[in-house]
């Protein structure tokens, strides 16, 4: 493949991803709210097509175009999906943390909805990223789970955020749920560095780990294209999940922070419920 093609793919995928993220933020503001009248179909179709095209290109680059690795042979090709998935999971955890802090500083249903969306989408990417890591471990280390520090730390964080989602399910009062889950989100995120160090030290006492080699320059392109493709997917997932969360919130409370209707007399007449 020519250098020109290389550059086009590299910068094109980045540009596409950034444009989609920008559009995603715009749609999150204009289209996701329940009362939105916006017709977002053309934009959404475009974004989805961009995701699929880039995913296909990334798959081709990773599975066909990239050369074999000197030590890992073909098996290393798994990292083209595994690593971007982990990156996206980390990104959503940071986003979730930001939402949690923001909600405690200033209560807002949109922040709460985004926190919910980011945690769930993060669990998706982290979950299958972890499974991919285990699959990668089988031919590399001979076992599915070798207590590799990165994977182990990620697994602990995933369980932590599963508990976060469980808490959201188990609290019915939406106001309390939002506050409590924000507190739990902050506490969970603060654990990240501690988990990392503890797991690293814990492992280093046993053996030095043969971690996957950090990526060769020639493989960087495949990894980048795949990562940008995943970022587009992440944006789309977050956008749709955020919209669902907003609609759920609307069903639970009167959005946007509406006051009760101001006509008691007229309501009393046709009120069917007896106090």
């Amino acid at each position, binding site marked *: 493949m020519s250098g020109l093609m290389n550059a086009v793919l590299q910068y094109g995928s980045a540009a596409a991803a950034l444009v989609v993220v920008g559009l995603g933020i715009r749609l999150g503001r204009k289209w996701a709210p329940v009362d939105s009248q916006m017709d977002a179909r053309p934009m959404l179709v475009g974004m989805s097509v961009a995701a699929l095209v880039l995913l296909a290109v990334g798959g081709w680059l990773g599975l066909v175009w990239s050369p074999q690795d000197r030590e890992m042979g073909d098996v290393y090709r798994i990292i083209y999906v595994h690593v971007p998935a982990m990156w996206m999971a980390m990104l959503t955890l940071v986003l979730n943390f930001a939402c949690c802090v923001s909600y*405690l500083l200033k209560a807002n249903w949109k922040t709460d909805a985004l926190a919910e969306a980011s945690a769930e989408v993060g669990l998706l990417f982290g979950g299958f990223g972890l499974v991919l890591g285990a699959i990668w471990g089988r031919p590399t280390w001979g076992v599915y789970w070798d207590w590799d520090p990165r994977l182990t730390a990620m697994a*602990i964080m995933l*369980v*932590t955020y*599963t*508990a*976060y989602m*469980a*808490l959201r399910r*188990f*609290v*019915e009062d939406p*106001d*309390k749920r939002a*506050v*409590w889950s*924000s*507190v*739990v989100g*902050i*506490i*969970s995120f*603060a*654990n990240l560095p*501690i*988990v990392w*160090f*503890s*797991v690293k*030290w*814990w492992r280093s*006492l046993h053996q030095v780990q043969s971690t996957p080699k950090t990526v060769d320059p020639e493989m960087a392109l495949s990894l980048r294209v795949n990562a940008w493709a995943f970022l587009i997917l992440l944006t789309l997932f977050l956008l749709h999940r955020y919209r669902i969360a907003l609609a759920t919130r609307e069903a639970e409370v009167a959005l946007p922070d509406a006051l009760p209707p101001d006509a008691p007399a007229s309501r009393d007449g046709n009120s069917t419920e007896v106090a």
Partner: protein
Amino acid sequence: MRRSRPISLLKAVVVLLGKDLLIEWRTRARLNALIFFSLATLLLFSFAVGPDTKLLARNAGGYLWLALLFASVLALGESFRVEQENLTLDGLRMAPADARAIFLSKALGNTVLLVGLGALLIPVMIALYGVKVTLGAGPMLGILALGCMAVAAPGTVYSAIANNARARDVLLPLMLFPLIIPALLAAAKATTLVLQGDPMNQLGSWSGLLIGFNLIYWGLGFVLFPRVIED
């Protein structure tokens, strides 16, 4: 006329801690059950592993902390259940008692409870698993205190939350266990080093990790707890 005047945070903590310990003492039947539960847990590990004394001795630190962890879920869950009857937590808030003082007193109370439980479990562990405390009682108690504090601080926040949720008995361990894995890891490792000797000077890093964990979570609990209980 009686005139109330604001009291310091420290004094409020002392009053509230005294109240919690008094309740704990007056309901000591429950406390006894907790002690026997954790003793039974220690005993169960030996049956689960089999009569391999070497294996038991090597893993003694881990078993001790698992037993403490299981007991801690019960103790933590109870610490806000006593405040739910008659909405006494509301009564405290409106008294007014500083919510941060409520956090500190509850977390300290749970720490005291767990350290006491640990102090009872350690001799049993020594006898049951045939280990000896190579580094002496001082480091052992230090690690015990650090580990119990590490469980108590996030445990208190989560207990206050889970107590008002559905399925609270499942929710508390579900939220707490993954969070305190690093603390459990560090405490179990440090205990093993205290029991078996520390030729490579690793005890410092593990206790450092425990101290860091404690600083973060006592700090976060102090700041965030008022948001949990105030509406």
